[in-house]
């Protein structure tokens, strides 16, 4: 991407982020969001991040990888570590260590 395009993506991305954060703060008293919308909002990071993680582990160059793909196994280990300890640092470290050992 050209520097110019990158600049605009950054600025617009920043603006979108800011306006999202501002939304209800600015609207307080003037508008109430529907209950269904508010109820579904906590699901957004779960959905978005899962949509990112799973293909990263399972797909390589447009095709499903083998089950002994090192990234998949290392990712699986990281998921288990995250499940058990919920600590970001050891999750990330365990994933890297697993990847290193598997190569």
């Amino acid at each position, binding site marked *: 991407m050209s520097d110019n395009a990158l600049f605009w993506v950054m600025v617009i991305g920043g603006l979108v982020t800011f306006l999202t954060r*501002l939304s209800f703060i600015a609207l307080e008293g003037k508008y109430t969001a529907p209950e269904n919308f508010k109820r579904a909002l906590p699901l957004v990071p779960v959905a*978005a991040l899962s949509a990112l993680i799973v293909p990263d582990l399972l797909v390589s160059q447009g095709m499903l990888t083998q089950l002994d793909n090192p990234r998949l196994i290392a990712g699986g280990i990281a998921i288990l570590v995250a499940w058990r300890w919920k600590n970001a640092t050891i999750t990330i470290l365990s*994933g*890297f260590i697993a990847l290193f050992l598997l190569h």
Partner: protein
Amino acid sequence: MNVHQRTNLAAFWLGARALLPLLIGVAPFGIIYGIVALQGGLSPIAAQLMSSVVFAGSAQFLFAQLAGMAAPGAVIVGAIGLINLRHALYSASVAPYLAHLPPRWKALLAYLLTDEAYAAAITPMMREENRHVAHWILLGAGFALWFGWQLSTAAGILLGAQLPKDLPLDFALPLTFIAIVVPLITDRTRFITALIAGTVAVALTNLPYKTGLVISALAAISVGGYMLTQQAKREKT
């Protein structure tokens, strides 16, 4: 210094102190972001600017990943918008405490409203005795996170320039996302949401411009949202 001013400052530091433990988790993310951003082809200045212009960790990671894949600008902006949509929830949650403030306060606090600032500040903010200084608490937490984020991303950027290019550091991205999302999966609805998002994303992985990502996320949110609505209806009866 009158009593009111002292209380404001005390509230500010209360917010900042509440944020400090979270920095231990945030700092590694910042460092890894700096490294990954450079690997994705961003210049050091662009990578650092992202931390103040966008100022959202997972969105910045996403930006680095998508930019590295030469995704179109519109897709990147859409993805950033989607992944940051949860901040609308924080906005709704703090809005009552900020309703009386002038626009510049609202704008500043909105800018600082990250996951961590919200998480640290909301509990003390809700306490009755802090009602009149709630905005100072959020300001303290928000600033503490802002400085911590600028410093750790800078550290990552400086570090990244030194590291050899063939290290599989791009694996940091999925690992970081795993570290964020797994603790969020606390019930069946969230598990199913994650499952649908992951499965559909794999199925649609070859769609151009990463549109598969957005479609799978929306599909998963729709199903999860439906499940939550049904649950709410059952609880009412």
